[in-house]
């Protein structure tokens, strides 16, 4: 049996029939797409566990240092956090619309929705810059002249918060200094990692936008758009948890 002849024959036949985006180790576009979807979800699993380690650390210290965590959390501006949450949820909507546009082969609409998503992502990052700048100004960055001095903090603006809690804090200033520092170490690591993922996501989307503009997608093949969508929604989900955990600790005092 001559391998060479048979091989050429099969290859010649196959080439005529398939979509240009079909890779040769797959039999059908359906198989390829399904593989991509599973692959992307497996990758998102790794991201769940990746952030999960931070959530585990957060969980332990929140239980141990609850009062300090609450005080530190109250020093964050709910306004920015809530705004960012709304912005990200909006960007999830625009991303879903972008994927839908790709599915229905509407090139211009897809590009517009993708650009809108990226813009909203940039708004989110801009807000984070504002927040980080404020934290830097107040010396709330661990390792960089960290100084917890609640007496100097202006109470978070008019959000209905009265005096500094009806429960007398039994922590000494030294304890507060250390415990709130743990909070902020986790705050910066978690939001920083999240922001990094957003930057990657925006980069990914710019590539996808370019590919859409170049006409690489159609009803049969829009997998990269969908994959970016999955990634972006995941980044949104992480923030959905970060917001209450970081911003909303014991706000009712």
């Amino acid at each position, binding site marked *: 049996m001559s391998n060479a002849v048979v091989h050429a024959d099969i290859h010649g036949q196959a080439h005529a029939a398939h979509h240009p985006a079909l890779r040769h180790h797959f039999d059908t576009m359906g198989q390829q797409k399904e593989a991509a979807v599973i692959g992307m979800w497996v990758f998102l*699993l790794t991201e769940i*566990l990746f952030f999960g380690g931070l959530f585990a650390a957060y969980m332990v210290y929140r239980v*141990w240092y609850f009062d300090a965590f609450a005080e530190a959390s109250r020093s964050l501006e*709910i306004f920015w956090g*809530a705004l960012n949450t709304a912005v990200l949820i909006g960007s999830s*909507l625009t991303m879903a619309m972008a994927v839908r546009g790709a599915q229905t082969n509407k090139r211009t609409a897809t590009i517009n929705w993708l650009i809108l998503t990226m813009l909203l992502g940039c708004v989110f990052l801009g807000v984070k810059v504002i927040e980080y700048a404020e934290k830097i100004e107040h010396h709330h960055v661990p390792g960089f002249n960290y100084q917890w001095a609640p007496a100097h903090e202006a109470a978070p603006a008019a959000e209905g918060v009265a005096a500094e809690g009806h429960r007398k804090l039994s922590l000494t200033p030294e304890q507060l200094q250390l415990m709130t520092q743990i909070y902020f170490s986790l705050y910066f690591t978690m939001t920083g990692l999240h922001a990094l993922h957003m930057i990657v996501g925006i980069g990914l989307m710019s590539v996808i936008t370019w590919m859409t503009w170049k006409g690489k997608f159609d009803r049969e093949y829009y997998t990269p758009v*969908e994959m970016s969508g999955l990634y972006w929604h*995941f980044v949104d989900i992480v923030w959905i948890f970060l917001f209450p955990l970081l911003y909303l600790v014991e706000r*009712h005092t």
Partner: protein
Amino acid sequence: MSGHVSPVGLYVTIFGALTVLTALTVFAAFVDLGQFNFLVAMVIAVFKASLVIWYFMHVKYASHLTKLTVATGLFFLVILLSMTLIDYSSKAFTPMPPFLQ
């Protein structure tokens, strides 16, 4: 083969629900529910995440394998968190040296 195309109305509805739930989370944070504040916040967050996963990420219309994959990831996250807690919930907080009087 194209996947399931969701109607625009569905997406907008989910967006609306997510926005309302966000507002609810913020509102609930200002109500003194004691220990339950955390639980309420987490329940709402889980529900929001579920909406995103189910509808925005199309898991509702995806294969069994995809659903199993998502469930597996969440299962092992729960193991990480809960089994770490086995240790921390069964011992007293031992003050670190700086905290000793």
